[in-house]
């Protein structure tokens, strides 16, 4: 059982089919599995449903698969950074399902944890609750939300060992750990590929059982959407 693949192309080879549901980690462009997304584009698979908090930006992340019109539907919480997305959505080419960000995160966590549905206060009394079961617990209303699973999850991690144990870096963690648990096939790109024993077992965030395939991306490109800084004060 060798989990390490030489590159993104070989890790995806023969796995992606038209119409599949793909989860994609990241928040904005932070912690997205950029190399795997490019390889997903290169498979040419069409009519994909993409579950991802955002839709990338024009030319980056899932934005690439919008250009090639490979995505049929997005399940997201915020897509404000992408003009191409707006065009395709307004022209009716692209389906869109908005989820509150916490509900999206919890639906993915539930999918990976074998929980088909749960109740949350979020969205009660709003459009989000329409058509969904609402139930009262201890005098308060809650809406039922369903768990989400994917055919393939694409994940970006900071360090991973050859067993698939993963550690994330700062806010690049975001949706990656839950998505790792909710993919029937989970493929991970890691910035640092290490041997078993090199990660602190108390600090591993994603145990290897959730990871089927790993690639090493030693020079991951990273993008900053909003570069905000402060001036150094004079000494």
């Amino acid at each position, binding site marked *: 059982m060798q989990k390490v693949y030489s590159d993104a192309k070989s890790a995806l080879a023969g796995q992606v089919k038209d119409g599949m549901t793909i989860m994609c980690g990241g928040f904005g462009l932070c912690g997205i599995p950029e190399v795997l997304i490019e390889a997903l584009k290169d498979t040419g698979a069409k009519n994909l449903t993409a579950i991802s908090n955002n839709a990338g930006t024009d030319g980056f992340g899932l934005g690439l698969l919008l250009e090639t019109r490979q995505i049929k539907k997005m399940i997201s*919480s*915020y897509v404000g950074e992408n003009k191409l997305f707006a065009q395709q959505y307004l022209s009716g080419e692209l389906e869109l399902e*908005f989820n509150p960000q916490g509900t*999206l995160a919890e639906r993915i966590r539930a999918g990976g944890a074998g929980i088909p549905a749960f109740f949350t*206060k979020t969205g009660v009394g709003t459009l989000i609750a329409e058509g969904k079961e609402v139930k009262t617990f201890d005098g308060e209303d809650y809406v039922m939300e369903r768990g989400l699973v994917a055919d393939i999850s694409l994940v970006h991690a900071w360090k991973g060992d050859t067993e698939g144990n993963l550690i994330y870096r700062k806010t690049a963690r975001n949706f990656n750990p839950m998505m790792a648990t909710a993919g029937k096939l989970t493929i991970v790109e890691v910035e640092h590929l290490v041997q078993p024993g090199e990660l602190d077992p108390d600090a591993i965030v994603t145990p290897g059982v959730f990871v089927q395939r790993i690639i090493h991306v030693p020079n991951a490109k990273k993008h*900053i959407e909003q570069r905000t800084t402060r001036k150094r004060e004079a000494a």
Partner: protein
Amino acid sequence: MAWTRDQMAARAAQELRDGFYVNLGIGIPTLVSNYIPQGMKVSLQSENGMLGMGPFPYEGDEDADLINAGKQTITELPTTSYFSSADSFAMIRGGHIDLSILGAMQVAENGDLANWMIPGKMVKGMGGAMDLVAGVKKVVVVMDHVAKAKDGMIEKKLLHRCNLPLTGARVVDMVVTDLGVFTIDKHGSGGMTLVELAPGVTLDDIKANTEASFQVALAKAA
């Protein structure tokens, strides 16, 4: 003389308490972090997975892996911890964050809030706003009292009922505008109460710019 953006942020900062865990929205709410009283310990949560958010980095120190929920580069503090989006919203939904300060398009007198979509216009999504207003213990809205359209028309934002799609029903505890401060009894039947006027603003100014019904209980003289 209405409050400036910074004065509104400073007024909202009066709702901070020592030891509070706080989530600040984009825009004026972000400015609130500049008005944390000296000696008061306030921890900022960023819903993309961070507790203990520091200020913007010095030029050259930006880290693409370290951003806030507005996708801005930020820094960490000695107290910082990182966690997943699921854990972050478990923290929010579970009522562990004391205060959320955010912007709004409309607020109704019963505490309903609309701030995520205008039908017919491009919809960007609600992001974490619905979770924040549903889960956080106290929700303070900071916004201009009225909206000024391009044609110069004024649209009221404090309403009997929101006519935009809701972000949350009965979720707002307090509204700070450029003209004054209102509290809302969101769980009871007490409705909305005007509790403070910006300097030089009169009750008549407020009445002229407010559709919502409200009581008046001014603690300070105008």
